[in-house]
């Protein structure tokens, strides 16, 4: 048998007050796979992504990362809420890249990348520093180590954010519309970095509007609308020959 999936969602439900945002999401992500979540805004894709590292709590169903319940521990038939420290430890293994980068503006690029590995993982600063500089080189920003985020373009900031997530050596990377806040000419550099990560076998879940990227890089694509998964499968099938009117309409609007 193959290894168990890295991420497994069964009938995941989530509501904000009376508004039901996720109405039973089923999804599995195997190790080394790239999964793209597509869909109009308000479809629940970002909310689902944020559930995976417990930035949002789920209200029903089961969500497992690496065989462990996110935010809970299962004993028998009960789920026990985990302590903040345990939740933080799980989050440290899952990298996240945000739409608005969320770099720490008061820290230099290098400090942004090295802070968590030294303070959370308690790794030696020289080891972390070497890894951070190598990652900066990889995202093409070796000369920006001493700059502050405000001195960088959006595309450069997002690549720093990716390097910051990678420096924690995560087993899973979540991308929440990583290119939506970027000027069109800066999108390419960020997507190139993501492609090279995918080629290296990083497990990634990407919420995106970049249909081209999904078609080229994703192993599986999911199309969500109004809190449910409408279509899923190989992007070459789903995104080229949509079966539902809803996806056909969406692709018509986006492309």
């Amino acid at each position: 048998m193959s290894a168990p999936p890295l991420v497994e969602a069964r009938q995941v439900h989530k509501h904000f007050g009376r508004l039901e945002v996720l109405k039973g999401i089923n999804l599995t992500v195997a190790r080394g796979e790239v999964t793209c979540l597509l869909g109009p805004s308000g479809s629940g894709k970002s909310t689902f992504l944020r559930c995976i590292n417990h930035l949002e709590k789920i209200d029903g169903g089961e969500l497992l990362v690496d065989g462990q319940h996110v935010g809970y521990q299962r004993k028998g038939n009960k789920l026990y809420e985990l302590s903040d420290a345990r939740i933080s430890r799980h989050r440290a293994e899952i990298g996240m890249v945000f739409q608005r980068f969320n770099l720490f503006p008061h820290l230099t690029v290098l400090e942004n990348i090295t802070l968590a590995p030294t303070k959370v993982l308690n790794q030696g600063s020289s080891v972390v520093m070497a890894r951070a500089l190598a990652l900066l080189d990889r995202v093409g920003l070796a000369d920006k180590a001493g700059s502050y985020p405000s001195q960088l373009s959006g595309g450069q900031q997002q690549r720093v954010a990716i390097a910051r997530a990678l420096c924690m050596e995560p087993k899973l990377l979540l991308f929440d519309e990583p290119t939506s806040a970027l000027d069109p000419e800066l999108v390419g550099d960020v997507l190139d970095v993501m492609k090279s990560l995918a080629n290296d076998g990083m497990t990634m879940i990407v919420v995106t509007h970049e249909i081209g990227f999904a078609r080229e890089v994703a192993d599986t694509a999911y199309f969500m609308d109004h809190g449910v998964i409408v279509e899923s499968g190989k992007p070459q099938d789903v995104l080229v020959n949509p079966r539902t009117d809803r996806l056909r309409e969406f692709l018509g609007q986006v492309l």
Partner: protein
Amino acid sequence: MSSEVPEDAASTASSTTTANSDETSSSGEVSSLKVVPLRSPVRYVSWAIAAIVVAMFVHTLFSTTTRFGQNGTQPRFEWHLIFQYLFNKVFVFGAIITIILTAAAMIVGVALGIGLASMRLSKFGVFRVSAALYVWFFRGTPVWTQLVFWGNLAYLYPTISVGFPFMHSLESWSMNSFETNFFLVAIIALGLNEGAYMAEIVRGGILVVDHGQVEAASSLGMGRALAFRRIILPQAMRSIIPPTGNETISMLKTTALVAPVLGAVSILGIKTGDLNEAALNIYSSNYHTIPVLMVAALWYLFLTSVLSVAQYFIERHYGKGFVTTSHKRVRRSLRTTIQEVPR
């Protein structure tokens, strides 16, 4: 009709090209063109008026004109007394006491403020409620009353004892030494009061920090304490510093309340209090109220100036990495906006 259309299009196209070529030729010369800035006569006239008003005021301070019919400088300000008392030992010691009280009370206040503000963000209700109650009480009652209360603590609670709640005490101490410790009582009273104000200032600073920062920190596995210390607080400092400067300068003068309530102390054999008490002691014996109070005012002004310079450097430190919103920048953008409105 139809034959005219392409002609029109052609003429527009040709006119566009000429316009383009015009632009390129003129843009080549831009560097050699001299820019004449807009000079408004208001600028010179207003400076002139201001200079005259200041000169008139200064004249009233030092004038020896016939109005008073006396020689020397303006007699009623008694400038010679001001210079005589400026570096008087009593004032120098008074300044030292004012500085020590202000610094100590602000250290207690800021530490307490940060603690209370983080309590208000706690996930435990007990901390949130007790911090809110603290702020409510200490901000809602006069400092004067609080000073009197702390000064009379030994009267209200003659002994302090340790034991189980509501039962026999295991150990007890007399409060007499507390009552006579002028500095300790003053620092506790002023510090606890300041803590309530600082708590709200720190809370306000934290509210300004983008929520995405907390999410980014949590997604990197940082706990609440680490994220607060390394991510939230340093960014909040930018909006905490200016009101804290205000508070410090205000505290400088609030220390004047201490001596009337708790009494003066002696340092090196000189019975003295803070700056204000020094002035009070001197003018109540020589009756030169105005010049002596002016000496105290000059000292306060000097200390405030030093604090303002310190504040500038602290603001610059915490502004690192942020696009500066200097006054010049704000003024410039305001000017451009105003100029652009008519178009």
